[in-house]
């Protein structure tokens, strides 16, 4: 019995963590950014990645930062399937939260105390 083996498309690092943070900070609600194209779960692992080690480390940071931003309510994270093991990972900007749980003054007072 033979199995067909799908050849994974070549992946590349699209943006760095600092680019993602900059985009999140400036994006208008509804704007979207493709922060990775490929198979993220595979591309971040040392064994399965198609990226150079430095790019893989950066992709790990990008993915973590995207998740962090989603947890803070800054972006929605969605993915679009193009084919086998080929997805677009998208961040969609959300309105910025207005509440301020802490202030500069409180930090400074805490530091003095």
């Amino acid at each position, binding site marked *: 019995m033979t199995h067909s083996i799908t050849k994974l498309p070549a992946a590349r690092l699209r943006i760095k*963590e600092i680019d993602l943070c900059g985009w999140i900070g400036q994006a208008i609600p509804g704007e979207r950014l493709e922060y990775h194209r490929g198979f993220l779960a595979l591309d971040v692992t040392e064994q399965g990645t198609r990226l150079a080690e430095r790019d893989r480390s950066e992709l790990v940071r990008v993915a973590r930062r995207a998740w962090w*931003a989603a947890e*803070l309510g800054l972006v929605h994270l969605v993915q679009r399937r193009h084919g086998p093991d080929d997805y677009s990972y998208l961040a969609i900007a959300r309105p910025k939260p207005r509440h*301020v749980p*802490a202030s*500069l003054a409180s*930090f*400074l007072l805490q530091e003095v105390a």
Partner: protein
Amino acid sequence: MSHAISAAELKLLLFEADAQARRLTCRLRLPRAELDDIRQDLLVDLIARLPAFDPERGSLGAFAGLVLRNYATRIAAKIRREREAFGAVPVSLDEEEPGRDGGTRGELTAEEDGLSAWLGQPVDAFATVERRLDTERGLGALERRDGALCAALAHTTVESLAAQGRGSRSSLYRRLKDIRLVLMAHGLEAA
């Protein structure tokens, strides 16, 4: 020799100082706003030298004229030196701008056109307030320990904090890098 001056002599001194100040401003093409300052400088110098006046050697008018001319020459030399250093056309903030209802240049120059703006300093008060609010919002997004680190760094350095045992230099710099990214994600860029 001291000499008590009468009201008529004082009037003469004021007149001589005024005439010399007008001659000087005219000769140097100084703005009208400078006239009062120059007249005052001339008078102060004249009054300071008045004890040296000897009525037996000449009239008060001649004495005042000599003293005022000497000091006017020194003022003129000083102004010429300043012009050589800073440009041929001096601009005074006290100078009235023509056709602007007597407003001086200092009163009519907008902050955006001022020297601070030219030197790159922020001059927009509204932008400053907005930036402060953005900073408050960005700092609110930090974890408390990171906020405390920012507050500490407002008056000390990473090296000092490391020496105080608040973490190694490398870990403090790593946290700073992370804080910078967090602030950037909240729309704040490094100044």
